[in-house]
């Protein structure tokens, strides 16, 4: 499996879908170093709190607010056998739909999509994370990179979903 290549001058929704499905495959198969390769050098990853989905991480307590340095540390951590929250690793399967290009400005493309991430672990109930993704993608030559990845959870509270110990 390799990253999808852009062919046209203009990034289409199909290009974005191919890219998101590829990313989903990397995350679901725990190819996290390859996934880091999809990020720009200044990428960030946010999961706002359930009660303030539209907030800014600089003035609101988020569930996750990583710059690229912490994101690399996060990947290091969850791959480590001493990351007990992911030992054994979550089995996940993500369904991505309602993909839309919401803005285009130069090489930057805003994308919205809905998701369901099913998560399974031995001895635990299945957990369904439902929500929407907000991406800022950057075109770099023939490929897309993730500059910002924001995960908005639909649930009113994290509640029985418990943790976000894998990349959502």
């Amino acid at each position, binding site marked *: 499996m390799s990253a999808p290549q852009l062919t046209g001058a203009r990034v289409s929704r199909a290009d974005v879908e191919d890219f998101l499905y590829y990313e989903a495959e990397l995350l679901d198969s725990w190819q996290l170093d390859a996934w880091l390769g999809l990020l720009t050098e200044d990428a960030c990853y946010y999961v706002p709190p359930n*009660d303030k989905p539209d907030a800014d991480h*600089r003035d609101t*307590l988020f569930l996750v607010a990583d710059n690229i340095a912490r994101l690399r540390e996060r990947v290091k951590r969850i791959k480590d056998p001493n990351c007990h*929250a992911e030992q054994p690793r979550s089995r996940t399967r993500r369904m991505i739909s309602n993909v839309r290009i919401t803005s285009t400005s130069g090489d930057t493309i805003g994308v919205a999509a809905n998701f369901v991430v099913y998560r399974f672990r031995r*001895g635990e109930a299945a957990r369904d994370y439902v929500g929407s993704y907000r991406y800022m993608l950057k075109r770099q030559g023939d490929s897309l990179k993730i500059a910002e990845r924001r995960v908005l959870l639909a649930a009113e509270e994290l509640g029985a979903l418990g943790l976000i110990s894998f990349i959502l």
Partner: protein
Amino acid sequence: MSDASYVLDDRERMSFSLDREVFVSPEVLERERRAVFDKCWIYVGHGSEVAEPGDFRTRDIADRPILFCRDRAGEVRAFLNSCRHRGALTCTKREGNARLFQCMYHGWVYDTEGKLRTVPGEDAYGPHFDKEKLGLVAVPRLAHYRDFFFLSFDPAVEDLETYLAGAKDYLDLVTEQSPSGRMQVISGTQEYEIAANWKLLVENSVDDYHLPTAHLTWLNYMKNSGVDMKPRETGLLLPTKGAGKDLGNGHLATDNPNYRGRPVAGWMPIYGEDAKPDMAALREELVARLGQARATRVADTNRNLVVFPNLVVNDGSSVTIRTFFPTDAGHMKVTAWALGPVEESAAQRARRLDSFLTFYGPGGFATPDDVAALELVQRGLGAWREVRWSDSSRGMNRPDDEQLNTDEGHLRVFWRRWSGLMGAGR
């Protein structure tokens, strides 16, 4: 000591054992609800969450729906959020600002002082129908210490400050980080569930013995970011030698010299070089206001506080308020907030929140492993009939006033108080 006790506390043999039934039994939980949660002061919210007249928050406290609000005259109140007519939740919003609360069912309207103001079709009631007596019911007791509001369902409970005992100083140490003594709960709530008994989170919140193993990846993250994680003395499990404290009345704390970073006011590499002058200024303000000794106490120690039975205030990587309630013997709901001085600049606030996420919360670098540990314990406790006792004797070979943060002396403080409230035996 009786064989029928849940807690076997034998100082002579330096042995302290807990009957694992206390973590799995629905009967024990039901007794806890009456003997612990209905008798103690229970944290309900922070004054800053209802900063303006009319501000309100609804939350479940010890299985009751509570309306926590500030009335039009500025007084903070807590009502049982149940319409006097048929019992519906009177206020259904999570938070907001209101002049009146109207029950959606038949339209009874209450004001922020709880008074019943209007009843649609009032002419259909007899002469003894008295609106004065049909206001929202206030919780039996409500009091605050430095804006931390507690309620009690026991009208005869001792006054809050007596109850808090030595925990007051630890709330002072948090509050003194604000030049005006005003802290505020920051926007954004972390609400999550753990499939474990609530008392396991009490222990976990102040258990420094588990850090080197359960949080090895957090230690590595700190090390990778440039923090010196080597023990400063031989024989320590962590970089500095901390203490486990008995604060009276079942309250307890770990109290550790800071070795990483604190928003007020200890720089660490994650904050970035450009934060250094700002953090130096924060410290100067502390010293000028509090004097060198108290400023050092505030800024150079990390303290995890448990106010019995279920309030945790951790003051380390950031300040967090955490409270939790059992939903059944093997399950709890946790709510956590970040707390900061009202005077913080935008940059200081952002640094505080970033620092929070280095450790705490469902997506943090440490809390998920705590949750994993607690859930593994709960699953292991399925063997309680055959493997009956847990050991909490660590540090009993040292005097009470020399307990380390990595000992279990402070955990025994909780259990002795719990045992006292629950009665001697089963």
